[in-house]
């Protein structure tokens, strides 16, 4: 115990050095005796203000990793610290509260953040129009289309105004155009603030379009396979040749990784 | 026939006799809580309250009445201090007394005798001997009527397991409210029940086979008596005495004005329960109940012995259950004969 406390204190001291630190993190599911190791010995730092994209095959443990960083699950081994406070998490399923309207979902987050009542409604409407849902304030969750739900969830995550934003395939249900617009918005917000982002996606181009660093996870168990630092200058476009080229390289690596797993 | 006489009789003859002194002096309690059943066997309470006999004696002390459907509830209320004085059957009184180790109550007066009959389905039972093998209802395991039936069965030489009711006669314990329904349905062949249930069964076509009073000396046995909480008795003997004066006066008035009293009782029933008894039930029931100041302690003692021999009661310690000193004081003051505690208390 004393040992852990000291190391925790040490980590705290260097808090400026990272927005999130995963230190030899493992995660297994299932009951003892029939456990399935999902994440194995992951060590990863997200620097303050950094934009990291996480890529990996379906089922490799990306969502599990985000849940661990958000503090929703506990690692089976290893430690995770997020010195900047509670990270905002945008779930893979939208996870909007069905008993509230789209606008009220956002306002609840603002309220939890401590924002005074009279500022909440304008702020919620600002965030909704940011995700191109200006008219959806009063809509119930079940009245929204799949992509609209995802955008409300994005607005809710932004409403939290955390220093670390965890996003689990936030744009998967969006058409190319809306996604491009939101890419721009996200890049703008990220570059204007000191926000750090850990971003899970399946779209390799999207990763290259957005990230400063792309991390590729292997499957079964999830390990860090390879990392790319991306120095293509912003503003990038998803159609840029440089983006396309790197995407092809990463896709090839992913393909090789999956091939090593046979079936997968 | 003498209804018009009764009215004047009631208000003139008995009122001045005892109450002159009592009404003027203020009693030691501001309020007395009285419990009774809306039932003909509690005629003293019904009529006395209706005619105001108790209030006359109590003067400025207020009566707070409460009515119950069953003895145990009344004992519980007495234990809780929710009532001070109550009209109740001997069996719950004895049970309550023994279970508290003789600390909660005293029986201070009698109130009624008789009113219990064995009524049967004439199609199935013609003679007493026919009862063998039939289903006979009593109100409750171990209550007065249940003990009486079991004892009667024993005297006939038949055997019944007291707890389960199985044996030569099937003893079916059924709430009095249900008994007429069960009879109509044919689930029971007869019942050993108090009034007015007995008369209700008769109204359904049953026949009276036996009147329990015929089994007792003097054709008298206790069905209702008056209890008081010992705390109240020692704190406010004057209030208890006033209530007893009212009770004695009421009993006398009922004996003298039977028809008027019957109408009073029925009116009181209607007020308490929204329903008066129909004449064909009321008349025979009323006729078979006698009011009496005598608690008939000896019969209560015998009943308890019967219960013990049926195995329904562990040998009770009834010593001291009666405290008839106040009653006898009231009776003496009126020049009436005193009553006896049969060795079970002060008299």
């Amino acid at each position, binding site marked *: 115990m004393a040992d852990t406390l000291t190391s925790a204190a040490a980590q705290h001291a260097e808090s400026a050095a990272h927005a999130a630190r995963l230190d030899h993190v493992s995660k297994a599911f299932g009951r003892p005796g029939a456990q399935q190791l999902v994440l194995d010995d992951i060590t990863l730092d997200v620097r303050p203000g950094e934009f990291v994209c996480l890529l990996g095959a379906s089922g490799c443990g990306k969502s599990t990793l985000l849940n661990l960083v958000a503090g929703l699950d506990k690692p089976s081994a290893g430690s995770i610290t997020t010195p900047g406070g509670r990270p*905002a998490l945008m779930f893979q399923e939208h996870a909007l509260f*069905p*008993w509230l309207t789209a606008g009220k979902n956002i306002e*609840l987050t603002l309220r939890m953040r401590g924002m005074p009542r009279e500022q909440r409604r304008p702020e919620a409407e600002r965030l909704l129009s940011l995700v191109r849902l200006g008219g959806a304030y009063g809509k119930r969750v*079940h009245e929204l289309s799949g992509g609209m739900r995802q955008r409300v969830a994005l607005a809710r995550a932004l409403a939290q105004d955390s220093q670390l934003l965890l996003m689990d395939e936030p744009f998967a249900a969006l058409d190319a155009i809306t996604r491009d617009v939101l890419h721009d918005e996200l890049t703008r917000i990220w570059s204007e603030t000191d926000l750090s982002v850990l971003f899970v996606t399946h779209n390799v181009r999207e990763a290259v379009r957005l990230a400063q660093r792309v991390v590729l996870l292997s499957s079964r168990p999830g390990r860090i396979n390879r990392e790319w630092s991306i120095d293509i200058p912003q503003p990038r476009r998803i159609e840029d040749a440089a983006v396309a080229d790197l995407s092809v390289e990463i896709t090839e690596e992913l393909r090789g990784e999956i091939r090593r797993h046979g079936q997968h | 026939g003498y209804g018009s006489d009764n009215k004047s009789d009631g208000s003139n003859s008995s009122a001045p006799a005892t109450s002159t002194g009592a009404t003027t002096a203020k009693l030691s309690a501001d309020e007395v809580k009285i419990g009774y059943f809306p039932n003909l066997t509690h005629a003293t309470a019904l009529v006395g309250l209706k005619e105001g006999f108790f209030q006359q004696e109590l003067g400025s002390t207020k009566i707070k009445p*409460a009515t119950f*459907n069953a003895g145990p509830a009344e004992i519980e209320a007495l*234990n809780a201090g929710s009532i001070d004085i109550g009209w109740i059957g001997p069996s719950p009184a004895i049970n309550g007394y023994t279970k508290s180790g003789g600390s909660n109550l005293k029986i201070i007066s009698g109130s009624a005798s008789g009113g219990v009959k064995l009524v049967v389905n004439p199609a199935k039972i013609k003679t007493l001997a026919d009862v063998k093998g039939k289903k006979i209802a009593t109100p409750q395991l171990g209550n007065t009527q249940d003990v009486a039936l079991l004892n009667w069965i024993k005297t006939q030489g038949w055997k019944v397991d007291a707890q389960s009711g199985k044996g030569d006669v099937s003893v079916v314990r059924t709430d009095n409210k249900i008994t007429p329904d069960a009879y109509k349905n044919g689930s029971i062949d007869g019942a050993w029940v108090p009034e007015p249930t007995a008369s209700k069964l008769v109204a359904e076509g049953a026949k009276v086979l036996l009147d329990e009073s015929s089994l007792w000396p003097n054709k008298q046995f206790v069905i209702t008596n008056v209890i008081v909480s010992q705390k109240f008795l020692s704190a406010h003997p004057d209030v208890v005495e006033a209530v007893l004066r009212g009770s004695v006066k009421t009993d006398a008035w009922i004996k003298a004005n039977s028809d008027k009293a019957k109408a009073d009782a029925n009116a009181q029933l209607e007020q308490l329960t929204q*329903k008066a008894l129909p004449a064909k039930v009321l008349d025979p029931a009323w006729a078979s109940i006698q009011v009496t100041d005598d608690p008939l302690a000896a019969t209560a003692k015998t009943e308890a012995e019967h219960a013990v021999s049926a195995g329904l009661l562990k040998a009770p310690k009834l010593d001291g259950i009666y405290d008839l000193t106040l009653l006898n004081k009231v009776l003496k003051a009126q020049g009436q004969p005193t009553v006896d505690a049969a060795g079970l208390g002060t008299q």
Partner: protein
Amino acid sequence: MASTETSGAQDAAPLGKSPADAPAQEQPDRHDLSGLEAGLDALDAVVVKRTPVGQVLVKKVLPPISAIVLVLVVWQLAVWAKLADQTKLPSPSAVGQELVDRWNAGDLFSIIWTSVSHGLLGFAAALVIGTPLGLVVARVPFVRAAIGPILSGLQSLPSVAWVPAAVIWLGLNNSTMYAVILLGAVPSIANGLVAGIDQVPPLYLRAGRTIGATGLRGAWFILLPAALPGYVAGLKQGWAFSWRSLMAAELIASSPDLGVGLGRYLENMREGSDMAGVFLGILLILFVGIAIDLLIFSPLERWVLRSRGLTAGSQ
């Protein structure tokens, strides 16, 4: 051949965005009530959400009324057919006469009101106690293991069992009445809330935690609203328990302080072997139960379900 057609194909006016020129929607009522199978599917397929007043009458008011009329007719027929004599089965008119008598006696409303006011007050108290209790039992594992089963046990303890204890400890007054109601309703409400909370998808709780709704704020803003459908179902059962407990409590004793309520009235009629009165008592209790359901719980339930899109056909 699976085919979904609408007859208004050609002649339906175009649906405009302006509310003013929105035409009445043509919804062929394909509702075939004859078959159970059709009925089981019916809710899925129908999209009608708000219907005009006439239709509301037809859909909401007609069915219960026809159910009542049907019962009355069968009842009267049974009486005419002399299936049983008057003492077993009073005629509707005898019961009606009893109702008129009560009305004339002027105590009909006081009887109903005595019970309803006791019942509602006791239920409100049970709500205030049962809700935090259910919350704690559902969320604190030790408490759940310790008193969860006891709560279920208490629920199955008949109210009459409490009466002696309540009378002895509290005396013959309203507190006894309320104690018995509480002992009946609190476990039921708490258990309903526990069941509701157990069914909350963990995703909502996790979403709540990430936005910082933890502890009591989490309970208030996430847990309770998420558990609301199950909670409302528990409330309904809790009301039934408190109402029945009240009826039991009214039977113990009556005194001028307590007043005559429906339970007492029913008991008096039973005591008097007055079948018409017993029927009237049953009908009045039933009537109150139905009225409370229609006035309080049904709207509450509908609101809860509709607002989260759980009414079939709304998605």
